């Protein structure tokens, strides 16, 4: 059976990728963020999985608003890095794992999560920035194949936090039932608090973010109880992206061990958080 070995939650702000691509990680405005990633990167380098699942959202690059799937999964052998309007990021294309994708799809549909299937998909910063946070210098290839799991967080009504957590739990069962003996890393991306438009643009809520970072490992059910309205009010209209962390957390064991976390602001208009959890710890009887 396949086993989730770790979960990594991280913001996917495009300027984080741009700072890396332009060699600005030592810039005083950025250094604390990248220093804060280092312990997680060191641990992850020692715990390379066979395959990773990245829960993310597209930002007008791979999909548009003609079709707005609430949840989707990529089933391709390869995902091109999107040109978001300023050229492709200088990072490797993403290799997929169609066999795992199709197994997850079938298991999740059987559990009532009717995912939209993406046989072709260009992946944008929502997916590639988290891969860079994990592996800042990938060379010619990312550490392992990747299954993209897409969530609509852009157009209301986004899925509820509770539904995301339930999807994560079903995803965990789907992974466990995969017949291949492989290890899996799971990434939940987006957030933390931010709002890009409106008179409240630039809104940041460090108290909420700190609560979220403190709670995601120990009591995700509490976070899953938050309504869309409460998330938008507390974390900003784009901070609702945090629901994607709950899919990651739901796929993990009841007990997880925090390896590292860090909070930084601002990454352009956004509060940036990272939280890394080890899934291989003793469970309650």
């Amino acid at each position: 059976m396949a086993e989730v070995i770790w979960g990594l939650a991280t913001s996917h702000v495009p300027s984080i990728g741009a700072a890396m691509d332009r060699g600005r990680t030592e810039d005083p405005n950025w250094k604390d963020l990248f220093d804060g990633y280092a312990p997680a990167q060191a641990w992850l380098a020692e715990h390379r999985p066979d395959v990773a699942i990245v829960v993310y959202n597209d930002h007008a690059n791979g999909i548009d608003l003609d079709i707005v799937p609430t949840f989707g999964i990529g089933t391709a052998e390869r995902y091109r890095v999107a040109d978001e309007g300023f050229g492709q990021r200088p990072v490797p294309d993403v290799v997929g794992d169609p066999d795992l994708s199709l197994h997850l799809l079938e298991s999740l549909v059987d559990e009532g999560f009717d995912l939209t299937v993406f046989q072709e998909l260009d992946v944008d910063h929502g997916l590639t920035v988290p891969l860079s946070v994990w592996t800042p210098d990938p060379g010619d290839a990312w550490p392992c194949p990747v299954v993209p799991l897409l969530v609509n967080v852009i157009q209301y009504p986004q899925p509820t936090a509770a539904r995301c957590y339930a999807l994560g739990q079903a995803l965990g069962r789907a992974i466990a039932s995969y017949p291949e003996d492989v290890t899996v890393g799971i990434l939940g991306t987006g957030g933390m608090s931010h709002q890009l438009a409106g008179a409240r643009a630039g809104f940041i809520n460090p108290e909420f973010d700190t609560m979220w970072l403190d709670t995601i490992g120990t009591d995700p059910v509490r976070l899953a109880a938050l309504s869309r309205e409460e998330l938008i009010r507390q974390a900003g209209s784009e901070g609702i992206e945090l629901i994607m962390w709950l899919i990651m957390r739901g796929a993990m064991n009841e007990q997880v061990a925090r390896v590292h976390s860090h909070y930084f602001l601002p990454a352009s208009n956004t509060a940036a958080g990272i939280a890394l959890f080890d899934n291989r710890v003793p469970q309650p009887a």
Partner: protein
Amino acid sequence: MSTDATAGRFDVPGTPVFDGQTSRRGLRMNRMFMSLRSAENRERFLADEAAYCRDSELTPEQQQAVLDRDWQAMIDLGGSIFYVYKLAMMDGRSMQYLGGVFTGTTEEEFQAAMRARGRRDG
């Protein structure tokens, strides 16, 4: 028709909620913004913006907002910030510049507010 995207649902002051009605209003304009990812389309757009807007079937109000670079109006007329940003990028504008526009401050003031741990409910 109300232009208040949150009417009748919930209201978070100063917070546009990009919902289904907003997305219906903005569909063609957002589609046009997405098309600006390609260099060829950016060239065509810049050669004759009004014609490109007409070909993209924007409403007259949307077309005027685009030609005037009235970012607030684009949001009010159904633009999604992630799509509107494609036009801003083409103009060499940053998300901090847009933040300044939405909050009535300069880009520098907005950036300074972000570096001071962001803005709070105002």
